[in-house]
C-alpha cells in the first residue's frame, strides 16, 4: 500500500460522504411528501400508478396493516418469480435455449431475490434466460430494495410522531422509493457502466475464433441495467457466475470505483436522512460515526491480512510484491480494491463480489463473517441496515440506562420492555438460527458433501453460507456447492428468517413508539450525540457479535490463521 493509495481512498470517501449527505437531504424531503426537483417528471407517473392500483395517497396504516401488506407483497413476489423461472423454457427472450430451472434452485432463487439477499446457488449465464433476468431478477432487485427502504420509515416516524395510531402507507413509501430514488440513480449508473464496457444487448452469445484458432463462446446479455440496480439496491446478484469479477460486469478500474460507490451510496445516505427526518442531524451524524469507525476497523484488519504474503505461497516460490495474495482476484483490481469492495459488500447487505471471498486470507474471512453476522448494521442494506443499527441503539440505551439507573429513552421516547423484547428477537433470532443451521450442516452427510475445502476452512464455508443467508447478504465462500436440495432449502429458510425477523419486529416497535408521548430532555438524559454514546454503541455491537460467534470463529478462521502460519496444509 502506497501513500497515494491512501490519498485516493480518502478522496473516494469524501466524495461519497458529500454525495450521500445531499442524497439524504433529498430523501428526507421526498418521504416527508415535499416536492423534489424530479417531481415534474416523475409525479405524473406516480399518480398514474396510484390510480391504476387503487391506492389512496393520504390513507394511513396501522403497523399491523403495514406489516400484513409487507408479507403479502413478498409472497406475491416469491410466487411469481418461482413460476417465471420454472416456465422460462417456454417463454421468449431465451436465445441460449435454457431449460426451466430445477424446483429447489428456483425456490431458493425466488426467496433469495425477494428477500434482497441475492444468494445464488446457480451460475447466471448458464441457468437464467434474458427474460428471467430482466422481468424476474432485476425487477426484484428494484422491489426488494424499495420495500426494504420503505419499512424503515415507520420506525423513524415512530420516533417523530406523538400519540399516533398509524405509521404511514406502505404502497406510497414503496412507490416513492423505487420511482424517485432507485430509478433515476439506476439510469445514470447504467449508462455510465455501458460507456465503460458493461454489456447491454439482447443478442445471443458471441462466437469468437481466438488468435490461436480455438472457438470461444462469450456470454453477453442485458447486464448493465441489472448491475446498476444490483449495486445501488444492496442486492448483489450477478448477471454472470463470477459476479462483479466478470469483465463484462466490471470491466475497468473506473467501473470498479463507480460500482463500489453505488454499493455504499444509499446506505450512507439513509443515516443522514434519518438525522434530517427527525430534525436533529447531529443524531444522524453520531450514528454515522459509529458506522464509519467500525468500517475503518474492519477494512484495516482486512488490508493488513491481505498485504501479508501467505506463508504457503512464499514457501512455494512466489515473489512477494504488493499484490501477492492474488488467487481469486483480478489483475485490474489488485489486493487493495478487492479488499475495499469486500469490506463494502459485507457491511452493507449487498453481497456482490469483485474477488472470491473463499480465497481471501483467514483473518479477512473473519472480518467478512463478522460484518454479516452482527446483522449488517455498519451502514447495512438500503433501509434495513438502519433498522438493525437502531435496534443496537435501543439495546445500548438499555445497557446505559441500567448503569445510570434511569428508564432508557432515545430521542424523547421511553423504551419499555416491549421495545427491548422486539429488539432482542430481531437480533438474536437470525444469529441463533444461523448457528443451529450451521451445526446441522456440519453434522450431516448432505452438508459435508458440498465442501470444496477441507478442515477449518470447510467449516468457514458452511458458516459463511448461513451467515450470508440469515444476514440477507448473498456473498459466498463460493467453493461450497450449494445447489443441492439440502442447501437450497435450508438456506431459503434462513433467508426468510433473516428478512422477517428483522422487519416485523421493527414495525411492531414502530407502532408502539408512535403511540408514545415525547418527553422533553431533562438534565439527566443520556446524550445520544457525543463521544460517550458512540463508544457505548460500538462496544455493544462488538460484544454482542463476539459473544455469539467467538466460539465457532475460533474453530474456523482463527484456527486456519494459526495453521497457515505454521504451514500446516490439509
Amino acid at each position, binding site marked *: 500500500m502506497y501513500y497515494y493509495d491512501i490519498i485516493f481512498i480518502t478522496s473516494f470517501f469524501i466524495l461519497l460522504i458529500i454525495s450521500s449527505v445531499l442524497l439524504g437531504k433529498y430523501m428526507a424531503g421526498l418521504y416527508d411528501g415535499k416536492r423534489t426537483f424530479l417531481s415534474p417528471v416523475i409525479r405524473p407517473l406516480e399518480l398514474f400508478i396510484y390510480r391504476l392500483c*387503487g391506492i389512496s395517497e393520504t390513507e394511513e396504516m396501522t403497523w399491523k396493516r403495514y406489516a400484513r401488506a409487507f408479507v403479502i407483497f413478498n409472497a406475491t413476489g416469491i410466487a411469481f418469480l418461482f413460476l417465471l423461472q420454472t416456465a422460462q423454457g417456454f417463454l421468449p427472450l431465451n436465445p441460449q435455449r435454457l431449460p426451466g430451472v430445477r424446483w429447489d434452485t428456483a425456490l431458493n432463487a425466488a426467496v433469495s431475490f425477494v428477500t434482497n439477499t441475492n444468494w445464488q446457488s446457480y451460475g447466471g449465464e448458464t441457468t437464467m434466460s434474458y427474460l428471467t433476468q430482466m422481468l424476474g431478477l432485476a425487477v426484484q432487485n428494484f422491489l426488494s430494495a424499495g420495500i426494504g427502504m420503505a419499512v424503515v420509515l415507520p420506525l423513524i416516524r415512530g420516533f417523530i410522531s406523538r400519540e399516533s395510531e398509524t405509521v404511514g402507507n406502505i404502497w406510497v413509501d414503496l412507490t416513492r422509493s423505487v420511482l424517485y430514488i432507485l430509478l433515476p440513480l439506476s439510469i445514470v449508473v447504467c449508462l455510465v457502466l455501458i460507456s465503460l464496457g458493461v454489456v447491454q444487448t439482447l443478442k445471443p452469445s458471441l462466437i*469468437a475464433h481466438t*488468435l490461436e484458432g480455438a472457438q470461444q463462446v462469450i456470454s453477453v446479455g442485458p447486464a448493465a441495467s441489472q448491475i446498476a440496480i444490483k449495486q445501488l439496491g444492496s442486492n448483489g446478484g450477478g448477471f454472470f457466475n463470477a459476479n462483479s469479477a466478470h469483465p463484462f460486469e466490471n470491466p475497468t478500474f473506473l467501473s470498479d470505483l463507480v460500482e463500489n460507490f453505488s454499493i455504499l451510496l444509499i446506505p450512507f445516505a439513509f443515516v443522514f436522512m434519518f438525522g434530517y427526518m427527525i430534525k436533529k442531524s447531529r443524531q444522524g451524524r453520531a450514528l454515522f460515526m459509529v458506522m464509519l469507525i467500525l468500517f475503518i476497523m474492519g477494512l484495516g484488519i482486512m488490508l493488513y491480512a491481505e498485504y501479508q504474503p501467505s506463508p504457503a505461497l512464499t514457501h*512455494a516460490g512466489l*515473489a512477494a510484491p504488493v499484490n501477492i495474495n492474488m488467487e*481469486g482476484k483480478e489483475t485490474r483490481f489488485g489486493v487493495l480494491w478487492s479488499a475495499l469492495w469486500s469490506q463494502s459488500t459485507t457491511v452493507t447487505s449487498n453481497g456482490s463480489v469483485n474477488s472470491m471471498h473463499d480465497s481471501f486470507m483467514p483473518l479477512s474471512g473473519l472480518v467478512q463473517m463478522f460484518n454479516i453476522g452482527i446483522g449488517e448494521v455498519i451502514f447495512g442494506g438500503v433501509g434495513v441496515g438502519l433498522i438493525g443499527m437502531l435496534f443496537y441503539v435501543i439495546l445500548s440505551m438499555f445497557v446505559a440506562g441500567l448503569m445510570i439507573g434511569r428508564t432508557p429513552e432515545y430521542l424523547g421516547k421511553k423504551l419499555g420492555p416491549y421495545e427491548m423484547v422486539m429488539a432482542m428477537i430481531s437480533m438474536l433470532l437470525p444469529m441463533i438460527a444461523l448457528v443451529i443451521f450451521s451445526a446441522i450442516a456440519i453434522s450431516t452427510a448432505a452438508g459435508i458433501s458440498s465442501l470444496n475445502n477441507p478442515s477449518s476452512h470447510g467449516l468457514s464455508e458452511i458458516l459463511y453460507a448461513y451467515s450470508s443467508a440469515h444476514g440477507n447478504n448473498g456473498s459466498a465462500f463460493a467453493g461450497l456447492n450449494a445447489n443441492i436440495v439440502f442447501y437450497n432449502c435450508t438456506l431459503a429458510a434462513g433467508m426468510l428468517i433473516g428478512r422477517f425477523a428483522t422487519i416485523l419486529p421493527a414495525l411492531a416497535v414502530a407502532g408502539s413508539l408512535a403511540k408514545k408521548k415525547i418527553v422533553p430532555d431533562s438534565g439527566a438524559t443520556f446524550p445520544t450525540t457525543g463521544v460517550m454514546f458512540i463508544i457505548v454503541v460500538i462496544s455493544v455491537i462488538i460484544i454482542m457479535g463476539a459473544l455469539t460467534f467467538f466460539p465457532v470463529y475460533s474453530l474456523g478462521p482463527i484456527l486456519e490463521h494459526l495453521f497457515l502460519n505454521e504451514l500446516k496444509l490439509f
Partner: protein
Amino acid sequence: MKQFKISILIFLVLSFVFGILYPLSMTGIGQILFPKKANGSVVFLNGRIIGSELVGQSFKSPWYFHGRPSVVNYDASNSGASNFGPTNKKFIDQVREAAERVKRENGLPADAKLPPDMVLASASGLDPDISLESALVQVNRIARVRGIDRPLVIEILNKTREKQYFNLFGNSFVNVLKLNLALDDLQKRK
C-alpha cells in the same frame, strides 16, 4: 382483501416499468450511444471476431504472451474461480506445478521467484490482464521464438500497457490480447 388486490396490481405495474420499460430503453440508448461497448467490445481481425478486448482468452503457444491460469480454461460462457482456501494442500500443489511449468517454458532458474498473478488463478477465470512483472518474465521467450530483439518486445509492452489511477500512478498491467495483437501486427509489417 383490498391489500391483496393492491399488492398484485402494484407488483404487475412495477414489473412492467422495471422489467420491460427500463431494461429495453437502456438497451436502446446503450446501442445508440455506445454500440461497441454495449455489444461486448468485440475485436475483429480480417473481418472475423477473434474475441473481446475485455475477456481473456487462452494462449498456450510459445510465440504468444500467456495469461493467468484459469479454472474454467477461459470458457467465456461459464465464468468461475478455484475458490481454494489458503490452507488447501491441493491449491498449493497446483501453484507449485504451475510455477514449475512457467519456469520451464521461460527458461528460468529453478530458484527464480515468480510474480504471483502468473501462477494464481483469477476470480472470473476470464482475467484479460497480467501484471507487468508477469509479462517481463515472458519477454525472453517471446524474443527468442519470434526472432526479434528483446528491446523491441519491451517497447511494444510499454506501448500497450495500461496504467491505473487515470494514468497518474499505481500498478500497471497489460492486456494480453492487445499485446499479442501488437506483436503479430509488428511482424506482419516487417
